[in-house]
């Protein structure tokens, strides 16, 4: 089950043609007034990001498309690249004109190497059609795109770690500021945007910002692409307007009766059934689009265990709260599973989680305790005082 109606309905290259008739500030203004926010998870306003990069001093600038898609439960960027690569490249080219960059880089995760030949073919065709290269569509715009393959590290989805990898280093996040818009790839101003963000920007140039703001909510405009998996009848990639409630979404995918829903992947929150009337939007529950449905029979400690294994494995190890904290939380989950965790120790683990949220250097360590904290808060009954009997219900 996969549906991308908005992207399907676009006229090829209409957004780029429009952008070629506009001045650089006018392109940025169109994106800014659409209210488009980053689809990679952090939700930074895209127009503002482009504006910073456009204003930054530097002869050479870069547009980087983040296709590292590694957040557990996320697979929408893969589908967008498979079905709408042209729209993504169109968006990159528009961004190139807006900020004054001549080079674009698609950072594609190593796990998606099988997409590379098809994407190279799309790029070659675009060069042939004068949609890339010098003198795009007869204008004086110059822009080209190359593909860089990731090498299997979730942390490289973090924009500064991604830039470290591009430069040939370990994917260890940098301190921010300085932000990539000022000091990015090779120290040059760089825009890092998610695949869906760039495709959405191309749609906005084509249809106008008013069309975009007519969808979604006031603070979270437009449509959003979701990756939905887990215990539901119709998992897949879906398009919904921002602001959809979890209950509505579950109905669409055949996941009614779920016990909980993980919104935002392993680094997101675990929402219990009692809160299914909440909305998915930046002002309520934000997400990069990962939705994992848990049926009544799932053991929430098994789920947490899987998430913490993931973070222990993927932490870059650069800073102590994250490197050690994730291991401590994982050990705590093992104690809970054995029914050997006191309430006092559980409270200590929660306070460790809160410390990690404040003291970690990058988003990985800042968000890895979220699932732990939300399960402890919402499923205390289920996780405390386990005996071998309570364990056997799974």
């Amino acid at each position: 089950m996969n549906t991308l109606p908005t992207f399907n309905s676009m006229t090829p290259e209409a957004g780029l043609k429009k952008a070629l008739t506009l001045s650089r500030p006018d392109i940025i203004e169109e994106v800014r007034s659409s209210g488009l926010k980053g689809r990679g998870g952090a939700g930074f306003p895209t127009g503002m990001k482009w504006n910073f990069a456009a204003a930054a001093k530097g002869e050479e600038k870069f547009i980087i498309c983040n296709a590292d898609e590694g957040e557990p439960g996320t697979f929408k960027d893969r589908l967008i690249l498979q079905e709408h690569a042209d729209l993504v490249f169109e968006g990159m080219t528009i961004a190139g004109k807006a900020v004054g960059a001549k080079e674009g880089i698609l950072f594609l995760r190593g796990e998606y190497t099988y997409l590379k030949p098809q994407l190279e073919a799309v790029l070659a065709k675009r060069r042939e059609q004068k949609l890339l290269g010098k003198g795009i569509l007869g204008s004086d715009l110059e822009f080209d795109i190359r593909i860089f393959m990731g090498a299997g590290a979730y942390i490289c989805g973090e924009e500064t770690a991604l830039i470290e990898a591009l430069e040939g280093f370990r994917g260890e996040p940098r301190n921010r500021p300085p932000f990539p818009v000022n000091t990015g790839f090779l120290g040059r101003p760089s825009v890092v945007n998610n695949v869906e963000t760039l495709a959405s920007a191309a749609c906005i140039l084509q249809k106008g910002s008013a069309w975009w703001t007519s969808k979604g909510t006031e603070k979270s405009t437009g449509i959003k692409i979701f990756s939905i998996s887990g215990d539901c009848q119709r998992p897949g990639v879906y398009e919904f307007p921002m602001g959809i409630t979890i209950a509505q979404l579950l109905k669409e995918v055949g996941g009614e009766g779920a016990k909980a829903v993980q919104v935002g992947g392993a680094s997101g929150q675990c929402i219990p059934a009692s809160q299914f009337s909440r909305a998915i939007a930046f002002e309520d529950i934000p997400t990069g689009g990962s939705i994992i449905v848990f049926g009544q029979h799932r053991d929430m400690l098994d789920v947490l265990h899987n998430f913490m294994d993931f973070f222990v494995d993927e932490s870059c190890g650069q800073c102590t709260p994250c490197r050690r904290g994730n291991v401590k939380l994982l050990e705590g989950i093992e104690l809970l599973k054995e029914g050997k965790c006191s309430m006092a120790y559980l409270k200590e683990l929660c306070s460790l989680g809160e410390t990690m949220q404040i003291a970690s250097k990058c988003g990985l360590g800042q968000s890895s305790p979220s699932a732990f904290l939300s399960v402890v808060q919402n499923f205390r009954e289920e996780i405390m005082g386990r005996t071998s009997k309570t364990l056997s219900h799974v």
Partner: protein
Amino acid sequence: MLMTGRERLAGEIQALAEKYGKQHSALIPIVQEIKQKYRQVDSFAMQIIADQLGIHPVEVYSVVSFYAFLGSQAQGKYIIRLCRTISCDMQGKDRVMRQLENDLGIKFGETTKDGKFSLEWANCMGMCDQGPALLVNEKLHTRVTPEKVHEILEECRRSFGVHATEQKEVHLV
């Protein structure tokens, strides 16, 4: 023999350095190509790469050891990566794991003695709606069941010639 093999490798690395430019940002693409061809990036290769890029070999090692798809140790011709993240886990990745281990006679993180297969874990591969998923080198397999494991391995073995497919794969552990 050994010398010529090394000379050839050095020549290849030099050609890659020309192709990607002798700068630090060429490091990962060069290592990726060497790893893909030789299934390993040994200390000799790391030294040559370092020389070509004008950096210290330790810097090459620090990068090689950081990324899951690189790594200096030798791996098999077919690297099988099974997704272990939540959605594939809930769809039964443990049984696929058991069958892979049974049929190859190795554990995850190991390579068969004949150097043909390696078993590795992968974190979320972006196929959560069609799990359990695994990659055989770059090729994707979805909705893998324990029975399908045999088929997938046979497909690999066919590339080794007829005799290989006839081999019985009985491993009593």
